[in-house]
């Protein structure tokens, strides 16, 4: 660990990024190691192949290395880094024309899950998520695994908060249609989300 490491993760990230902007490779490596795990988990929603995940992470940190000097303190380092990863992944995803893999739930067979089994529900959830449109899938991941706020997700995905809310709404509705065990019936489509 470099002497730049601080107690608070935000302070530590900021100090590391300042050092990266000054050309400190050790700082970049420390930042890389501290983000690798959460980025790998996040990007596994794009692709299950580790080689693709690693490529996106490394592309992300090449961008971090080249653009650290342009980082503005208006946002958090974590939001900035994850936002770069998000955009890099979307580009990669679209370039490889894999988006057809993110089929809509209409393509998915009728649910055959035993709603009384938690293991079955979790297994279904894994498959159900993989079939959501990618933006909806990642919104769920950003909120429910990475714990980001609405505003942070809007910053990461570079879209209005209303769009984030709409993605979350549609994700929930599609998942609920597929798995009644989640509970409740379809919600009324809001005239305005925002």
């Amino acid at each position: 660990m470099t002497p730049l490491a601080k107690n608070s993760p935000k302070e530590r990230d900021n100090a590391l990024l300042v050092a990266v902007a000054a050309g400190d490779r050790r700082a970049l490596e420390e930042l890389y190691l501290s983000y690798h795990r959460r980025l790998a988990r996040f990007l596994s929603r794009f692709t299950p192949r580790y080689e693709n995940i690693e490529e996106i992470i490394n592309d992300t940190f090449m961008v971090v290395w080249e653009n650290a000097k342009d980082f503005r303190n208006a946002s958090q380092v974590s939001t900035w880094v994850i936002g770069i990863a998000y955009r890099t992944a979307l580009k990669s995803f679209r370039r490889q024309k894999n988006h057809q893999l993110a089929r809509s739930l209409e393509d998915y067979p009728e649910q055959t899950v035993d709603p009384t089994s938690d293991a079955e529900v979790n297994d279904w959830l894994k498959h159900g998520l993989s079939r959501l449109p990618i933006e909806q899938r990642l919104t769920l991941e950003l909120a429910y695994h990475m714990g980001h706020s609405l505003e942070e997700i809007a910053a990461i995905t570079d879209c209005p908060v209303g769009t984030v809310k709409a993605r979350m709404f549609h994700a929930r509705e599609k998942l609920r249609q597929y798995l009644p065990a989640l509970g409740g019936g379809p919600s009324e489509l809001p005239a305005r989300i925002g």
Partner: protein
Amino acid sequence: MTNNRRSENSAEHQEVSALIPWYVNDTLADSERQRVDAHVGSCAVCRDDLAVHKRLFEGIDAQPALDPLKEASLKRLQARLDVAQAQNALPSIPPLAPSRSDAPWPGWMAASIAAMAVAIGLLAADRWLQFEVRAQQPNYRTVTTSIPRPPGEVIRAVFAPSITLVELQTILDEAQLKIVSGPTEAGVYSLASNSTLTVRSSLALLRRHSTVRFAEGTLREPELREPESGSSP
């Protein structure tokens, strides 16, 4: 609730409903949280939505964490950075062709050219030495080749190229192993034990999987000298 009442509350209902996911992940401001609390208390639809989001939150958060191969990935990033930095260094060479034809002291130019020539020579020598070092290192390893063992390594294994990170992690968790190095160019991972499980047991657990193409113990313990555990499957 009458239709009129529902219409009056519709805007509040929609706005609160859209906040529920962030109520569940506990990132709402206090004022927004209180607003959701107040509405959910009187709205069965939002209570239902809240229950759905809680189940999604628990389900997504509970999915297995990955233990990515970050050290190996970092090495590949470092290699890319080396290349990028070398490419960035190239534009510094143009002083060899000075743009000013009216340089006041041609001797400076000659000195610069000489310095550049020395620098390029040193760079070339450095690259050559690096090449030589790499050339002395074979890009393959055999089972019998004696190679330095990463700290803690007890097993070397090769997995199917198609294996996903989640599958890899599941197999390693089951065999109570962790990656300490790799993959090499040949796809070999060095694995260390995560528990008191014997290496032989871990090997047996690894070999049960069709995605494990090769698994070999690297310790010279008696159990590993037994014929059935020292060879590749």
